[in-house]
């Protein structure tokens, strides 16, 4: 095994397996650093072209080295450059797509909501300086940094601050922040989204042993300081995707931070001075620098300086030269580099090609915040322009590239941010660093060639300059269009390194200035985030609240199957051993029609409406008159939206002159309360009315069937239950089974029926007493649906869809003719609501009495389908088997339906349309004879 570790580097040895081979690394390595230390150069094969690819960068900007973690838990699409090595890691290289885990994730994910005065993103020199300055004021400061350790690029460059190593200085800054009670430091935390009103979202990868694996931070900040640094920029040249081609700064980082040499003999290809620092460090570490190809023709000053002393003494500097080709070894990695320039063309033997095309400030979050970018002609880069939110940018993120400049900028920016948030910052010293002067950088995006088929501008998506030129040749001019046409910049790295280069190539090809062309839009997330982290604890049972009634335990213990109605669990039916759903429901239906049944109706919405103007208020909202209701009586009512369409229905009981209890459908309770509040607050604030949800205060047992009176009489000996004393649509307070109860005589089945309401905590005792009589069969929502449909009672939201008026439902009787106005009344007088071809609620009887029509099926006029388009006359809204009718039946909304009663229509179900007969929507006991028992 080849060790590429610098001499003297030691630490805890960790074993890992990559692509089926065993290796060793050191604690503190990333997987990428450990692979390079083991001499692994081609780490993946590209997905489309199958070209070998190496490690290109040293952190989250890496375009190539995607891996699948296999152990301890399968995770796809991680970057080898950011995965911290641990003992027992098993990973494979990914060319393209990863694989999701085949087992449940045992880890926990969490979320934190936080507020602060100043959020500093990035703990490099500028961010640390900004955070310590701001925190000195007493402001609440959060410093979030995506690396495991603070310092930003300092461990990569080995520079010193205040006379000590950068790492030592950074540790000192963290210690200072730890002494500030209002400051919080979040390492391994990537701020990936910047939204409205300084709302930023970050993901924290927590250390082993923490209570959760990852945590999402949702941070609202008064001021934001972005100290996100800069990415080194690649250059487009032939073969720029070969393993061994690497950013100069990345090779420097591997040497200084991890003690790993990325090669033995290197050629440097640069447009500026930065790469010389990298070359100097690599030379000092033992890498032979074969030559420096500097695109600047006036770099002679450097040439002379280099010749004098230091590790680069004697290194050949080829000014005005570019790389025009890369020769490869059998494994596809770099074996030689061809340079061309004024001295002609030369092939230089090397296994490493260090590239530096200048630097791009990391403007992603600034751009996400709505800030404008501008192209700086001296830096040859897009830098932050005018801000749209309370945000400032410090250091390399705004194009300040010297360490001394970043420290100075950080202190100034952190001070400004804290003061803008209302704090006073005491005089704060600027940490000292060596001042250097640099020659102006050259500008080179693209090495001209005859053939651009291996000049890559997106290594992951495998897009070349030739592809971009095909796009511009096809007439595309916008970078957004070229991005979508070529897919450049759409991979996991979202073009972090190559995006600006792609813009430059488009500008070059279309003959415009890159500053005028701009970049593609920077969108969240800045780096990939797992769905598990975003979901946090909102999964499984915690995904959405589950509401159950006080009788739920009984239902579950007695084998009920449940139906979801909104967030409620309602008993659907109670199968006995050997029964399927159909048999059970037919049995339950028969029990109610022939004996007595009980249903848990506790989920119906209940709103207490009180106040001197309560009756007037209900008159305005319901289509019918509520003010004439007597205390002790109950009325069924319908509410419409202003457009005249039915919105909800239910009963209203008058408890006192100034007090009503309105019930709503189970799923619509919150919407009805909101609706009442909206009208009270925004249109009728003069009405003295208070609305309170009391849904969960009550348990309600519906007792229905011809024997229900006898059952109630037995349970409530003090209550006069005869029809004259306790008429239909009235309520009485009484003791039922010894429990204080409010008993209503209402029916949703057409049978003699009661609804017994008790305190929720007495619900189970009441239910057990009712069922304990031995003559009452528990029934569920399916039976309730069948029974109400036999009677033609619509379910709002099932038999209606927001386009249905009370008249369409055949419920003119529920619409007051006397009231001057109610919500929706004016709409009932529109021409559209009286059209004769409106859809009416009707009944359907399939000619085959055993055929159950599917709900949602369409109705047509002819037995053979004509050529499309076919006009549908309506659709089936409810469909059941009826025990009482001894056959199937359905409800439907049918155009001009009431005029079609007796007609034969057809339902296309795949084969020949099946015939059905249109009937009145009330199919059972149309004269209402069973209501009084």
């Amino acid at each position: 095994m080849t060790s590429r570790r610098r001499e003297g580097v030691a630490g805890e040895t960790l074993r890992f397996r990559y692509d089926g081979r065993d290796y060793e690394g050191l604690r503190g390595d990333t997987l990428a650093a450990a692979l390079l230390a083991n001499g692994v150069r081609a780490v993946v094969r590209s997905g489309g072209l199958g070209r070998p690819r190496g490690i290109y960068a040293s952190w989250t900007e890496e375009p190539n080295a995607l891996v699948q973690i296999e152990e301890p838990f399968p995770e796809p699409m991680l970057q080898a450059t950011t995965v911290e090595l641990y003992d027992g890691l098993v990973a494979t290289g990914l060319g393209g797509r990863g694989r999701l885990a085949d087992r449940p994730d045992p880890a926990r994910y969490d979320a934190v909501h936080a507020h602060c005065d100043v959020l500093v993103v990035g703990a490099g020199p500028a961010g640390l300086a900004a955070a310590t300055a701001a925190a000195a004021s007493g402001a609440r400061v959060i410093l979030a940094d995506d690396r495991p350790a603070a310092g930003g690029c300092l461990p990569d460059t080995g520079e010193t601050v205040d006379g000590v190593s950068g790492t030592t200085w950074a540790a000192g800054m963290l210690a200072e922040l730890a002494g500030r009670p209002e400051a919080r430091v979040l390492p391994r935390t990537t701020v990936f989204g910047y939204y409205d009103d300084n709302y930023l979202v970050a993901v924290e990868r927590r250390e082993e042993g923490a209570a959760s694996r990852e945590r999402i931070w949702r941070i609202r900040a008064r001021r934001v300081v972005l100290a996100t640094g800069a990415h080194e920029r690649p250059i487009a040249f032939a073969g720029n995707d070969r393993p061994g081609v690497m950013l100069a700064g990345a090779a420097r980082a591997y040497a200084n931070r991890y003690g790993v040499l990325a090669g033995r003999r290197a050629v440097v290809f640069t447009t500026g001075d930065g790469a010389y620092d990298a070359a100097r460090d690599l030379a000092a570490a033992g890498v032979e620098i074969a030559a420096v190809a500097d695109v600047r023709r006036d770099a002679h000053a450097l040439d002379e300086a280099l010749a004098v002393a230091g590790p680069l003494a004697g290194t050949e500097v080829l000014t005005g030269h570019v790389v025009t080709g890369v020769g490869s070894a059998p494994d596809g990695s770099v074996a030689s580099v061809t340079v061309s320039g004024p001295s002609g063309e030369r092939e230089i033997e090397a296994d490493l090609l260090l590239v530096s095309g200048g630097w791009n400030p990391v403007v992603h979050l600034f751009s996400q915040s709505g800030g404008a970018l501008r192209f700086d002609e001296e830096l040859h880069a897009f830098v932050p322009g005018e801000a749209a939110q309370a945000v400032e940018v410090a250091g390399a993120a705004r194009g300040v590239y010297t360490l001394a400049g970043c420290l100075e900028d950080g202190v100034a920016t952190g001070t400004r941010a804290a003061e803008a948030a209302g704090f006073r910052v005491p005089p704060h010293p600027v940490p000292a660093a060596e001042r250097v002067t640099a020659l102006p950088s050259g500008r080179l995006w693209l090495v001209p060639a005859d053939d651009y088929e291996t000049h890559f501008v997106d290594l992951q998506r495998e897009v070349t300059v030739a592809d971009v030129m095909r796009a511009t040749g096809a007439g595309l001019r916008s970078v957004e269009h070229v991005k979508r046409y070529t897919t450049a910049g759409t991979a996991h790295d979202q073009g972090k390194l190559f995006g600006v280069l792609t813009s430059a190539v488009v500008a070059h090809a279309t003959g415009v200035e890159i500053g005028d062309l701009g970049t593609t839009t920077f969108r969240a997330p800045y780096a990939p985030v797992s769905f598990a982290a975003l979901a946090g604890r909102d999964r499984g049972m915690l995904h959405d609240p589950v509401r159950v009634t006080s009788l739920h335990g009984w239902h579950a213990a007695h084998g009920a199957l449940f139906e979801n109605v909104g967030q409620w669990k309602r008993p659907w039916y109670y199968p006995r051993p050997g029964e399927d759903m159909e048999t059970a429901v037919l049995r339950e239906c028969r029990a109610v029609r022939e004996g007595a049944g009980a249903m848990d109706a506790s989920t119906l919405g209940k709103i207490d409406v009180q106040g001197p103007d309560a009756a007037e208020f209900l008159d305005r909202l319901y289509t019918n008159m509520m003010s004439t209701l007597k205390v002790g009586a109950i009325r069924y009512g319908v509410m419409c939206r202003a457009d005249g369409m039915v919105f909800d229905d239910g009963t209203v009981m008058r408890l006192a002159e100034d007090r009503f209890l309105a019930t709503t459908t189970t799923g619509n309770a919150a919407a009805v309360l909101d609706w009442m509040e909206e009208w009270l607050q925004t249109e009728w604030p003069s009405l003295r009315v208070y609305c309170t949800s009391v849904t969960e205060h009550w348990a309600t047992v519906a007792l229905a069937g011809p024997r229900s009176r006898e059952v109630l009489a037995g349970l409530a000996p003090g209550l006069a239950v005869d029809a004259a004393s306790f008429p239909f649509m009235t309520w009485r307070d009484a003791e039922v089974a010894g429990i204080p109860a409010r008993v209503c005589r209402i029916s949703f089945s057409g049978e003699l029926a009661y609804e017994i309401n008790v305190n929720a905590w007495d619900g189970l005792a009441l239910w057990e007493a009712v069922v304990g009589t031995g003559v009452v069969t528990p029934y569920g929502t399916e039976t309730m649906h069948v029974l109400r449909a036999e009677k033609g009672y619509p379910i709002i939201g099932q038999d209606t869809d927001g386009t249905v008026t009370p008249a369409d439902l055949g419920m003119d009787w529920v619409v007051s003719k006397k009231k001057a106005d109610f919500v929706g009344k004016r709409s009932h007088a529109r021409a559209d609501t009286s059209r004769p071809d409106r859809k009416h609620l009707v009944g359907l009887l399939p000619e085959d009495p055993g055929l159950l029509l599917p709900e949602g099926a369409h109705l047509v006029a002819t037995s053979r389908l004509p050529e499309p388009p076919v006009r549908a006359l309506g659709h089936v809204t409810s469909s059941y088997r009826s025990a009482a009718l001894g056959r199937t039946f359905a409800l439907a909304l049918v155009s001009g339906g009431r005029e079609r009663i007796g007609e034969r229509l057809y339902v296309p179900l795949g084969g020949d349309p099946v015939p059905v007969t249109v009937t009145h929507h009330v199919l059972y006991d149309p004269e209402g004879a069973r209501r009084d028992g």
Partner: protein
Amino acid sequence: MLLIPCPWCGPRDEAEFHYGGQAHVAYPADPAALSDEEWARYLFFRDNPKGRFAERWSHTAGCRRWFTLTRDTATGVFESEAGA
């Protein structure tokens, strides 16, 4: 996520609110007196400006009060914190 200045509770996350559309569209005093077109205008027609827009919000997950704010729809910035 917008930070919405509730006049009763102070600035709160957008997720606590329900949007109520254009403000100052009053329920007509006498709907019966309106022509079909005038009634349709009340029911169905709303402005959709780029720029200043007075709109209704309800702090549904907080104090449950309705209030009116003016917002620049291009920038998302609220103009005043006073309710109406």
